[in-house]
């Protein structure tokens, strides 16, 4: 698993949704739960997947004909890393915290 080179508030929201989910989560539900636009969530999921934080798979429900849904979940290494990143971000963004650098420097 590779470290994230860029952490934005949208990345944190996506990590939070994936961390709160029990099992694999449908991409549309991640968009809905994070409250972020699809144009932000799709690239974030692709980046997390390419870095090894997240893994994705097709749905196994044969009852639904046509194109399949894609489900995402945190990997074994990605799960604790996501929790730590969210925690650090929350500490960083707490009112009154000393902020002399951007999130990318803190988490890069």
């Amino acid at each position, binding site marked *: 698993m590779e470290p994230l080179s860029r952490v934005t508030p949208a990345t944190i929201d996506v990590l939070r949704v994936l961390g709160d989910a029990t099992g694999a989560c449908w991409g549309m539900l991640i968009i809905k739960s994070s409250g972020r636009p699809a144009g932000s969530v799709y690239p974030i999921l692709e980046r997390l997947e390419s870095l090894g934080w997240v893994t994705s798979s097709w749905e196994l429900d044969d009852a639904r004909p046509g194109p399949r849904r894609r489900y995402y979940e945190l990997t074994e290494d990605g799960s604790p890393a996501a929790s730590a990143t969210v925690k650090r971000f929350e500490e960083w963004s707490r009112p009154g915290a000393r902020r002399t650098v*951007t999130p990318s420097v803190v988490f890069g």
Partner: protein
Amino acid sequence: MNRSATAAVRIAAAFLPRELRIRYREQWMGDLRDGSEVGISTAEIARGSLAFAATYTRPLSNWSHVSDRTAALWVRVAVALSFSSAIVSISQYSIFATSSGSDASSDAGLVALASTQLLAAFMVLAPLLSLVAVFTTRGAEGRVRLSVGLLAVATVLPMTRPGIDNLLVPEGNFFTSPGTVVFPIAIALVIAAGTILARMYRPLARPKVPQRLSRRLLTSTIAGLLVVIVVVVGFVSMTGVWDARTPLVFGLPLNEANRAMYTQWVQLKFQFEELVSTIFGMWIVAGLAVACLLAASGFSSRATRQRSTMMLGIVILSSAAIFGGIISLLQMSTGSTASTSIELLIAAGRWGLTCILTTAILRTSARSAAQHESAER
């Protein structure tokens, strides 16, 4: 399922690398079918897929025959060409406004015509070459592709509606004509592309050494005063000239109704020309103020290397904008009556501006993906 959303998703998938294309096409089609279950519209999914395709960065490692260095060079050339052509296209308003007045039978007219046509060719070829370079170079970042695309549109826009000045019949309003409206749109696109590119190279850590307050205060005050002076002088001169101009169309063999119509048209034309001249005049002084401010405050601190490089880029761009504004004003004030030496000067200025901009952006942009990555961290 919405047909236009389906088409958008298919187009987005077609722009992805082969290994991702099939997967994302099926994923997005599934999302389109079932997205309404969780209250997400098909338009939202279509926008998301297009945004994903436009910003997706193809990994360089998949294309071992293209070296990191070569890819980076092509990207830098594309950014430099597209940015310079867009700035030249906007700042050289006079090309479109006065080129038809050039008389190829005289030496001066020949110089003006050749210079204009060659520059127009550059403004067509440069964005085309840039687009080909960024979209065929593996490893070019999605954000760079998006910026080059925006700059290409910004370059072409002013050329789509030439001849604002050559209307023979009083049709419409100069201020709201498509030929005028395309300029602010093009400027907005350049600003958007510049913001995307600047964010890619932005310095993340602030300089730790505090700057001296007095110096910053002084430069800010001077720059602020300059801007205020520009706005006041521009406004006063514009309104003053509007009142003084009286269209003379009485000599024309027109009936009363047509004469009134032409009088109104000519008056509007003069107002429009004054507005254009004022905007260029304000542009020159505002560019000068920005350049002075950055030169004074940007280089005085122990800033990071990226910061200095970015500052240098902005100073060069501001100076180029000043230069471009002066050339455009010179062309507009001389019109088709300029001497050969003036036309040669304007031609040299235009090409000098183009070369300065291209070279400056080439020199200040990141040299390699590794350098770029270090700027991001």
